[in-house]
């Protein structure tokens, strides 16, 4: 975070940093006081814009056009950092002859399968010598990036995975590193030339017509970032859910990564792409994932049909021939299985691999909610999350809750998800009634953060131990105690079972010391996560680094990327050397993964010879005398690999990393401008419109992301998009967001008087022009109607919302903070903005599109009771929307 004060230019896009991460924003303030330029690109003028040098209003969902135009600008005007790009990225790598770009296929890439609504990425592969010689690429050829067994996946499962994150940040492995390169970047099939062709039509004029951003504003940003990149200066990009919550979200981030690679900002102080995540330990809950598709450390959950055996699994997650640390994925997986099943996991039984349940598709929260509606889920745990307010299509969430047999809610306050059976809006409309809802609800109050020991992992991958201050009151217990207790009870209940199905539970290692209050020792759990040597002369000692992990069962470790947090038996997450006594990087406060490195890929802060690109931007460099890497941070590179080192071709593992391969988690050690694998919806980011949009895609006939996940259902209707009949019924764009004064779905803020009085009521933000058009008054009421539902809110008329003019047409955007919910326990309540959203997901990570939807807005309060349903239906029928509307995946001219 502190590194932002090293930036010469900071672009905040898809983030409202000053409002959502105010204390981190102090580092932006520092940068600005030192003379840095700060640009805020956002549909609204927010408190971040107020202290930025420039606010650039943008149409929600059009970021790829803007960023793509910047890429085009950089390439066309030769403003990229040439030496960095040639040495450190795959710009010079040749791509398969079979590849076809969106420019050739009117918005699709080669390999689209209409039946599955997904791509087969075979044609996106790197070209290779063998393939070239054999005159084409072939699935079975040794040259193909994607032999079966090397992570390339075919078949139905492909479209159902959250594929990118299963293999860690490097994406799926490549078969080899025998790529073809043209260092002059001239060959038409180099990534460099493909990039140029791909973004050729992303011009400032296109930006004006698609994003509503003036040519002046575009020029300002283009100049600011190019003048502040290169050897002597760096630019940082900062983003949050304004980018992730789109059906194209992962590609938004990819576009900024490409731009930052071209400008030479990745891995450099004051550079990079910074993700600002939203919850105290959301990073931790992704690393040690309470997520369906991952095992700790970004290992994949096994998938039926792909990982039926241990050999299948090992082959899929890490080829021995690829470079980097993912080749040892087998060691990480074995260590995890040893941590979970201890002595019961042996070489003979493939480390109890069969104890792991299998996935058969996407089992994300939205799919699960739909399964609840179908009566397939009986029991549900809500652990500090409030989906009745915080999830998209909140109505669907509440109706799903009403179909459960039992629900366990653990929350500090009586959130709306716990009282749905008496307070939800569906009670008032008559759709639900308490006497008909069979769901048993258990409300178990948890301990607060000061009433337990443990670690949070914040957005920069840093673990910080928080110390227990007092005992929890009343019936409150920590979640650690609850689950430890539940596990003990389950094991006890099954103790006599002879059913094979129960073995994973019975054999599970589940023994942590407890104190006199019945609290399990959190440090003991963290030690297990760190890992141990299990045999040999170091038996019983904690591991110091994940490089000590073995695939022979002699080590255990619950999460390999966290290994090192307890090195030498010291709880490094509790390191608290005051910041005033350290340099800016402050390595002795907390512990970041991996191995306490603070800036990832920091090898790139030095040139191919190992010297800093400039004195001003020195960060990590090669010490010739000591023959090791050194600097301000822990080097993110094998410590003793000299810059001049070149491995034998075909060497895998960390030993295969060359001295100029800073991107050590990528299979070829280079930054990927073009992604042959790992992104399911395209190797290059391409502009598509949101699921619902009043604007037709100006670039292609392919309107929206052809791989996006849609759910055609009568309870998930969509406004007709641009140029479709009925799109004028919902003519405005709405976007949802947070305010500084509240926190997410309100469970931790609407119950606090101090916060509730700062923002007591749900409101919308509209421009004076829109207010005039719809007769809205500042301080009055409005009803916002979407194809799913309608909500009421107070009105703030403000010039901070500006109408955008796109190709002569005015687009109005409406802002809706989403913190309020309908209930009777909170100090302040209100309608939930998420009632307006439907469910459409990004295909890479299954995240919903909450940042752009279509709506109408009318003055006055909404109807109550059944009349509310009538209003919504009346709009639906006027627009002619059906369960098919908006769910057509491919919309190109030669369509199916």
């Amino acid at each position, binding site marked *: 975070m502190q590194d932002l004060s090293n930036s010469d230019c900071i672009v905040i896009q898809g983030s409202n940093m000053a409002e959502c991460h105010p204390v981190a924003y*102090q580092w932006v*303030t520092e940068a600005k006081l030192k003379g840095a330029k700060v640009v805020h690109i956002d549909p609204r003028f927010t408190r971040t814009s107020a202290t930025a040098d420039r606010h650039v209003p943008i149409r929600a969902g059009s970021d790829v056009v803007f960023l793509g135009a910047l890429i085009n600008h950089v390439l066309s005007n030769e403003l990229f950092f040439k030496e960095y790009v040639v040495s450190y990225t795959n710009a010079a790598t040749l791509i398969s002859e079979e590849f076809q770009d969106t420019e050739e296929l009117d918005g699709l890439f080669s390999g689209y399968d209409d039946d599955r609504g997904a791509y087969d990425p075979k044609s996106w592969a790197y070209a290779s010598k063998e393939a070239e010689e054999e005159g084409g690429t072939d699935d079975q050829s040794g040259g193909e990036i994607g032999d079966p067994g090397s992570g390339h996946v075919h078949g139905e499962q492909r479209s159902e995975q959250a594929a990118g994150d299963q293999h860690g940040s490097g994406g799926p492995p490549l078969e080899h590193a025998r790529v073809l390169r043209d260092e002059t970047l001239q060959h038409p099939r180099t990534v460099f030339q493909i990039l140029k062709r791909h973004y050729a039509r992303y011009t400032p004029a296109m930006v004006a017509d698609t994003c509503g951003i003036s040519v002046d504003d575009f020029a300002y940003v283009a100049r600011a970032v190019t003048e502040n990149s290169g050897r002597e200066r760096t630019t940082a990009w900062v983003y949050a859910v304004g980018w992730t919550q789109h059906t194209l979200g992962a590609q938004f981030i990819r576009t900024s990564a490409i731009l930052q690679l071209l400008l030479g900002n990745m891995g450099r102080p004051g550079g990079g792409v910074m993700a600002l995540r939203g919850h105290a330990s959301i990073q931790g809950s992704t690393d040690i994932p309470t997520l369906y598709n991952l095992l700790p450390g970004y290992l994949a959950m096994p998938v039926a049909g792909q990982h039926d055996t241990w050999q299948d699994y090992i082959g899929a997650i890490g080829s021995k021939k690829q470079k980097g640390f993912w080749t040892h994925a087998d060691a990480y997986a074995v260590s995890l299985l040893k941590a979970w099943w201890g002595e019961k996991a042996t070489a003979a039984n493939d480390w109890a691999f069969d104890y792991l349940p299998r996935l058969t598709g996407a089992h994300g929260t939205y799919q699960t909610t739909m399964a609840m509606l179908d009566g397939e889920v009986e029991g549900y745990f809500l652990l500090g999350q409030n989906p009745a307010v915080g999830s998209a299509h909140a109505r669907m969430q509440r109706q799903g809750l009403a179909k459960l047999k039992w629900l366990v809610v653990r929350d500090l306050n009586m959130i709306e998800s716990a009282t749905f059976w008496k307070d939800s809006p569906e009670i008032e409309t008559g759709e639900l009634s308490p006497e008909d809802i069979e769901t048993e609800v258990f409300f178990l109050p948890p301990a607060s953060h000061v009433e337990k020991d443990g670690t949070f992992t914040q957005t920069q991958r840093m673990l910080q131990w928080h110390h227990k201050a007092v005992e929890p009151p009343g019936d409150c217990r920590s979640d650690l105690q609850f689950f430890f207790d539940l596990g003990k009870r389950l094991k006890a209940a099954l103790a006599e079972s002879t059913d094979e199905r129960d073995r994973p539970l019975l054999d599970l290692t589940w023994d942590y010391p407890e104190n006199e209050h019945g609290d399990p020792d959190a440090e003991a759990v963290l030690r297990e996560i760190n890992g141990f040597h299990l045999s040999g002369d170091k038996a019983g000692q904690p591991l110091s680094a994940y490089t000590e992990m073995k695939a022979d069962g002699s080590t255990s470790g619950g999460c390999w990327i966290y290994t090192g947090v307890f090195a030498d038996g010291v709880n490094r997450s509790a390191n608290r050397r005051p910041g005033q006594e350290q340099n800016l990087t402050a390595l002795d406060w907390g512990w970041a993964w991996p191995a306490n490195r603070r800036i990832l890929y920091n090898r790139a802060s030095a040139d191919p010879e190992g010297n800093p690109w400039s004195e001003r931007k020195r960060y990590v460099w090669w010490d010739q005398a000591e023959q090791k890497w050194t600097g301000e941070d822990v080097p993110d590179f094998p410590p003793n690999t000299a810059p001049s080192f070149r491995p034998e071709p075909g060497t895998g593992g960390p030993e295969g990393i060359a001295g100029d391969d800073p991107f050590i988690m990528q299979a070829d050690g280079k930054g990927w401008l073009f992604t042959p694998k790992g992104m399911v919806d395209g190797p290059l980011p391409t502009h598509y419109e949101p699921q619902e949009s009043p604007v037709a895609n100006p670039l292609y006939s392919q309107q929206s992301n052809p791989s996006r996940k849609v759910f055609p259902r009568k309870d998930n209707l969509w406004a007709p998009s641009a140029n479709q009949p009925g799109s004028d019924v919902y003519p405005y764009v709405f976007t949802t967001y947070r305010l500084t004064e509240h926190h997410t779905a309100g469970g931790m803020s609407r119950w606090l008087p101090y916060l509730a009085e700062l923002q007591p009521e749900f409101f919308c933000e509209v421009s004076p022009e829109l207010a005039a058009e719809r007769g809205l008054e500042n301080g009055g009421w409005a009803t916002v109607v979407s194809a799913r539902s309608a909500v009421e809110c107070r009105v703030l008329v403000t010039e901070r919302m500006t109408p955008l003019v796109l190709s002569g047409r005015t687009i109005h955007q409406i802002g809706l903070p989403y913190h309020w919910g309908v209930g009777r326990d909170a100090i302040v309540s209100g309608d939930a903005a998420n009632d307006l959203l439907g469910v459409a997901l990004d295909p890479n990570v299954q995240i919903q599109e909450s940042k752009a939807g279509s709506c109408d807005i009318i003055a006055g309060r909404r109807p109550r009771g059944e009349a509310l349903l009538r209003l919504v239906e009346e709009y639906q029928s006027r627009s002619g929307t059906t369960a098919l509307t908006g769910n057509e995946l491919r919309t190109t001219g030669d369509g199916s």
Partner: protein
Amino acid sequence: MGFWRNQLAGPTDPSRDAAWDDPEPRKGFFTDTSICIGCKACEVACKEWNAIPQDGELNLLGSSYDNTGSLGASTWRHVAFIEQTSDRIEQARESGSRLVQLGMPSVGAPAPASAAVGATSGAAPAPALAGVNLSDPDFAAAQATAARELGSVPDFRWLMDSDVCKHCTHAACLDVCPTGALFRTEFGTVVVQDDVCNGCGYCVAACPFGVIERRDGDETVKNAGIAQKCTLCYDRIGHDQTPACAQACPTTSIKFGDLADMQSQAQERVDTLHSNGFPEARVYGGNQHDGVGGTGSVFLLLDEPEVYGLPPDPRVTTADLPDMFRKAGFAAAAMLAMAVAAFVGGRK
């Protein structure tokens, strides 16, 4: 009469005037609104530290993001939000340039030569302004117009200001308090003693800024009925700790320290902003010759005080006391003389 003259106007050391022997250096705030992000951490940290109850009803005021309205008995830090378009911004720049031309006195230590700190923070005219005599208002107006045409006067800006009790050098609330509930601390701050205040309300009428008020509420509300305002965290600063608001403020928009430091930092920052092309920046409360003798909370504002809801020329309401007593004295003497004359004259 030197001591007496200093009690109602002009520069002075208020702690000494209140008979503290060898008091600490006077403490105060510098609130730099140019880096405020309007987060209201100050409002909450203050309320939390002082256990201040809810202020009024929970209503959206419709006044930008401000739902607390103003300072009062139950809001001791209040963040104001002002949305402005380019017309108003230009006017603010012009009026700021005029202030410079009038040679408004700087306070505290003379500001160091204020070259722009590092590169400019964005506005293109900065190189043109370097070395230019900003004190020429016509030129400044022309620059403002030129800057607009260059696209550098923004179309819009959002001012944010965390307001607080001014802890005036000449504090009217303190002067009129009949019970001694209000007192001057050794730090030069003004504090209400809630165990002494009887809720008479004289201070409420006296304050030229409208800060101090009596708290609403019934017997369940702490300190209901008595006067309440910012104490500049008297308990904290007496133990070498920072006031709650200053500690919490994420960007250090609120700074706390020796008042002399605060004043000179304010002036430095104004000078920096001027050389970066923001002539509208000005210090508020830093002039010891103003109507309250300068305040213990100085502000950097980016527009006229009235825009922020602050009085442009605050004056301690007791400043007229000598004059009033003189007049009352004359009136009384005249009445007495007439009464005597009536009796003396009437004797037959």
